[in-house]
């Protein structure tokens, strides 16, 4: 699971059908001290994390396919949980 921080949001009208209705967040991977540790990426956020929230993210596409109810979905990053205190 990736440890990341939510740094932005994105909207995409033209996208793969499985993305329709999903909140897309832009995240930055962070280390345990909260310092940036990698290139930003996008993820689907079914739990509604707030700005600069620290979350952990799965990169397992098959799990995300269950969330979006579409077995042809190419999405791979999904917010799994909010980290209260590291």
């Amino acid at each position, binding site marked *: 699971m990736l440890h990341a921080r939510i*740094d932005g949001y*994105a909207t995409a009208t*033209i*996208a793969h059908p499985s993305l329709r209705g999903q909140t897309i967040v832009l995240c930055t991977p962070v280390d345990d001290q909260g310092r940036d540790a990698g*290139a930003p*990426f996008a993820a689907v956020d079914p739990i509604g994390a707030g700005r600069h929230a620290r979350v952990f993210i799965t990169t397992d596409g098959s799990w995300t*396919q269950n969330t979006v109810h579409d077995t042809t979905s*190419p999405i791979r990053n999904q917010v799994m949980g909010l980290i209260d205190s590291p």
Partner: protein
Amino acid sequence: MKPGRVIGTVTLSQAAPQFRGARWLMVSPMGPAELTGKNPGLSQQSTPVVYDKLGAGLGDEILYVEGAEATQPFDHPIPLDAINVALLDRYTYAPPTV
């Protein structure tokens, strides 16, 4: 899903049969400097060629997926590892400045 900016297209005269009628994009991956607008140009990262079914044009910002998940939208096996999954309308990216 990684953000990137379309900087070109690729046409193939010879390609694997599964790629008949495919459209390919040259994408410049967007790092923090590009997403915050500090660098409107190209990033230093390598340029992947991404399969496109959504009709992205030059200069569009997209989200693309790399890896085995890129083959999921197809019902036949296909030797593909990067696909465009979204054309970004608007996005914000503002890491904490502290």
